[in-house]
């Protein structure tokens, strides 16, 4: 047990050291994160129910653990039949043989299906000394078995890193073929994509209010880019901006207030609109372009994109005083900012030679680093825990959605509909 608390601690220390080292060297120009940590090797032998193998259950757990970025999942092919089919209780496990494969953690589970129920009894062992780290039982209806596996994965991640995983999350995104798109929601593992709109139109920048009640997006369904906010339960339009001009880049300040940019004539405006009272307040108005407003976790600062100094760059405005300062001073194309939930990082897109890269910087604009590896990348957004970044990436012809750790490691493509997928967000 102590070994894994020690791991959690050493992980935290590594991150702290990384941040410290970075701040001491603040002049780095779009450096790539070099900091890293060793992944834990975990084995998930096939789960079974009364002797019948259910490999899809253990496969999904393996998929979740791989996606988390903290584990190397031991390939099934390395386990000979004896190992794969040994019992789940401590005395029947040959820990020395698991150790000889390089396995550090071992997750065993048995499935029971009866009376229209699905239960999973799971054990997590430290392979070095056979310590039982946890034993858990989960129950659900047979169709909900995936949820249980995600919960088990999140529990294993909690045990190893000291923080719960996000494998049970859902993702919001835009999908379709070029001009004929809709907003979808699906499980993080790609399962069960479901349409939230039915428009077959150009739709951009979807976002859901923090309480999950409203969906906002920009759609061309009336011929030009209007902003719509709909009540997800009833489908009713709660707020619409049909002014002439482009309305885009919705971001929620709280459960009722949405901010977005409006470009018309020589002027751009960032509005904050209350979807209940329909009252629309000007947060910022300037000549040129204003785009992509988003807010610090404490709500005191707004970051946004403006071309007021030539080329799009990222600016921060103190909402109380109106003081505005430029954050990005590298290259001449920096857009699509997103605050981390702890307020310690801002993710954004920066144009480098031949690519649009996902980057992170500190909220004062220092210490910018490239996390992606070429191609046209867009729309970074942090997970609610702050450890992951979702983004869209075009490598070759098609846009897909990816997730990576906040340091750029463990990039994984998320596969939902098979069509082009862009502008991901975590569902609240």
């Amino acid at each position, binding site marked *: 047990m102590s070994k894994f608390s020690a791991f959690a601690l050493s992980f935290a220390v590594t991150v702290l050291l990384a941040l410290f080292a970075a701040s001491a060297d603040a002049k780095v120009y779009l450096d790539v994160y070099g900091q890293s940590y060793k992944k834990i090797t975990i084995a998930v032998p096939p789960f079974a129910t009364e002797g019948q193998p259910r490999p899809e259950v253990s496969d999904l757990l393996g998929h979740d653990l791989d996606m988390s970025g903290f584990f190397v999942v031991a390939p099934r092919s390395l386990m000979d039949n004896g190992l794969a089919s040994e019992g789940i209780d401590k005395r029947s496990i040959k820990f020395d043989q698991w150790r000889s494969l390089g396995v550090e953690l071992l997750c065993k589970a048995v499935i029971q299906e009866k009376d229209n129920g699905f239960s999973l009894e799971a054990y997590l062992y430290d392979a070095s000394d056979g310590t039982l780290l946890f034993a858990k039982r989960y129950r659900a209806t047979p169709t909900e078995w995936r949820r249980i596996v995600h919960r088990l994965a999140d529990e294993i991640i909690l045990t190893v890193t000291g923080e719960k995983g996000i494998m049970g999350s859902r993702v919001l995104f835009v999908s379709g073929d070029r*001009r004929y798109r809709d907003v979808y929601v699906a499980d993080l593992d790609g399962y069960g994509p479901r349409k939230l709109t039915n428009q077959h139109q150009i739709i951009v920048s979807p976002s859901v209010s923090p309480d999950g009640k409203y969906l906002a997006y920009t759609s061309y369904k009336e011929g030009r*880019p209007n902003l719509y906010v709909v009540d997800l339960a009833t489908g009713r339009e709660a707020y619409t901006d049909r002014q002439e001009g482009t309305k885009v880049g919705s971001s929620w300040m709280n459960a009722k207030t949405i901010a977005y940019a409006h470009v018309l004539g020589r002027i751009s405006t960032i509005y904050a609109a209350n979807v209940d009272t329909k009252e629309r307040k000007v947060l910022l108005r300037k000549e040129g372009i204003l785009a992509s407003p988003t807010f610090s976790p404490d709500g005191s600062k707004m970051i946004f994109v403006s071309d007021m100094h030539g080329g799009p760059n990222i600016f921060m405005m103190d909402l109380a005083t109106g003081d505005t300062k430029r954050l990005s001073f590298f290259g001449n194309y920096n857009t699509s900012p997103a605050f981390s939930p702890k307020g310690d990082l801002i993710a954004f897109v920066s144009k480098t030679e031949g690519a649009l890269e996902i980057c992170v910087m500190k909220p004062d604009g220092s210490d910018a680093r490239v996390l992606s590896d070429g191609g046209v990348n867009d729309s970074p957004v942090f997970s609610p825990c702050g450890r992951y970044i979702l983004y869209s990436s075009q490598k070759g012809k098609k846009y897909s959605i990816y997730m990576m750790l906040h340091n750029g490691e463990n990039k994984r493509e998320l596969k939902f509909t098979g069509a082009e997928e862009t502008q991901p967000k975590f569902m609240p």
Partner: protein
Amino acid sequence: MKKNLFPLVMAAIILLFYGCSSKQPYTPITERMKQPEVAQQPSEGTGAKEGTNEEELARAERERQRLAAEAAASAAPHLPDVYFDFDSYIIRNQDMPALKDIADWLSKNQSVKVVIEGNCDERGTTEYNLALGQKRAEAAKDFLVRSGVAANRIRTNSYGKEVPVDTGHTEEAWAKNRRDHFVSQQ
């Protein structure tokens, strides 16, 4: 035989175009893309109909002349696209004459309105490109207004990088996509 059918074919074309323009003042590009392009090519059958007599031909010719005269007064010339540099929304020197021609034509045809559609290439982020496309459309509108066209005859629309005219990934394709497109409406 072929020569005799020409007026009929012309009448059909004019009728088709005339019908379209009066029914649908402005069709957003998303809808234009969805419609099968029937109006462009009258089918062979229209003209090759059996038993066309002299009287019908004469009537078609009179109709053609009437429609042609009407069309000449207001028919939209092909309004050329105006192009932009990367991440720029300033009208380039070489495009000023083309814009001036558009302004002159709009001044002569006071009943015509125009929608300017701003577009961008794929090398930018979605949201910023929507804003940039709007500014490109506004830049052309600004020029037309300063050339004497009433502002209320011009509408602007941005498609960002969402509807490229060329889906390639080359400098050439990008240059074609950084454009203002003009759609006239009666």
